[in-house]
């Protein structure tokens, strides 16, 4: 049990996807303007990560058993894309409330490198099925955590500071992320 807790904590704090591994940077910078959409995006990504891992891990075993493991990239991206499409259609029909709050983020997630990244890294690190699921869940939580933090910083940044003209927009957000990443480095070595 301790092993699973360690996987989750290390994915949230030590190996945080946007702030320590450069995965999912686009939504991290793009959708973090207000905390409401940041939370929505974070939850949607967590949800898709766990589901995508649940589906792609067995598929990889199937590919390996047939000796065509090199097709990983093609198969995974297509499976994730169609999975996201399916979830979206299912939500639209059966869970209208949830669709209204999360649905808008789903098409964006297909091309989110964090989702494909977590599926491939689960295979590369040789996790078993349950460990993979925990790893994906932890990665999603870490992403959500970083998104909420970033949204909090940005809401102050935009309204209450005078930013030099050439630093306005993306550069200042990147610099904020740099400082956040620096502080997240403090968690490094928690498990060694």
């Amino acid at each position, binding site marked *: 049990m301790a092993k699973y807790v360690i996987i989750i904590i290390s994915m949230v704090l030590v190996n945080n996807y946007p*702030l*320590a*591994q*450069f*995965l*999912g*940077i*686009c939504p991290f*910078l*793009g*959708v973090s*303007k207000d905390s409401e*959409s940041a939370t929505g*995006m974070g939850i949607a990504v967590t949800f898709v990560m766990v589901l995508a891992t649940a589906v792609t891990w067995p598929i990889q075993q199937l590919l390996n058993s047939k000796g065509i493991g*090199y*097709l*990983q*990239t*093609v198969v995974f*991206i*297509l499976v994730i*894309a*169609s999975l996201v499409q399916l979830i979206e259609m299912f939500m639209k029909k059966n869970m209208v409330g949830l669709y209204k709050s999360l*649905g*808008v*983020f789903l*098409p*964006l997630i*297909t*091309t*989110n*490198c964090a989702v*494909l*990244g977590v599926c*491939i*890294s689960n295979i*590369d690190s040789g996790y078993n099925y349950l460990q993979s699921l925990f790893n994906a869940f932890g990665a999603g939580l870490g992403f959500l955590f970083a998104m909420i933090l970033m949204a909090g910083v940005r809401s102050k940044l*935009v309204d209450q500071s005078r930013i030099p*003209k*050439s*630093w*306005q*927009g*993306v*550069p*200042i957000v*990147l*610099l904020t*992320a*740099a*400082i956040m*990443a*620096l502080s*997240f*480095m403090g968690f490094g070595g928690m498990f060694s």
Partner: protein
Amino acid sequence: MENKSKLSILTNGLIKENPVLVLVLGTCPTLATSTSVVNGFGMGVSATAVLICSNIVISILRKIIPDSVRIPCYITVIAGFVTIVQLVVKAFAPALDKSLGLYLPLIVVNCIILGRAEMFANKNSVFDSLLDGVGMGIGFTATLVVMGSIRELTGAGTWCGIPVLSRIMPGMSIMTLVPGGFAVYAIVMAFVHYITEDKSKIKDSFGCDGCASADDCVDGSGCSKEVA
């Protein structure tokens, strides 16, 4: 698009529409692989190869692919080329394969490639798409090499593994780590904003026009149309 000269298509990607610094596409590989000149160059060339090939194929197929299923078709084409590049790199440059690691298969979700397919290749002739791919690829590679140079020089004191600054000062290893990546990207982008005369060309937000899912996006509320 028709009256654009061939040269302007080629040079578009270098500065005016530099994919990384002006269009803000492909941020993940930019930050992750610009730790050194060699890594940045390797990533740039791999992505350029995929970009050129996918631009050509998508441009050839642009009249055949039905509009409603174009995104899955594009992803399939791109994923095929990424697999080819992955196998080639693994066979001929195993060291590069090891240092790029996860980011090599992740070229498939690199927004630059899908973005160019959506914004350029499906509207333009094969030759123009080829030129666009070359230009954008060079712009991407050049940016990665510049960022890689800054990070390697300040972080390790070397350039392409040759000691330069390491004789006179110790390297600041933070520059090759994660915070240095964000900071250098921010500085380079702010510098480009500063020197670019035509401020209107600068994108100060992550808008929808660069986003591959723009059409499926419900009135932009899911993404960041008006990010400050």
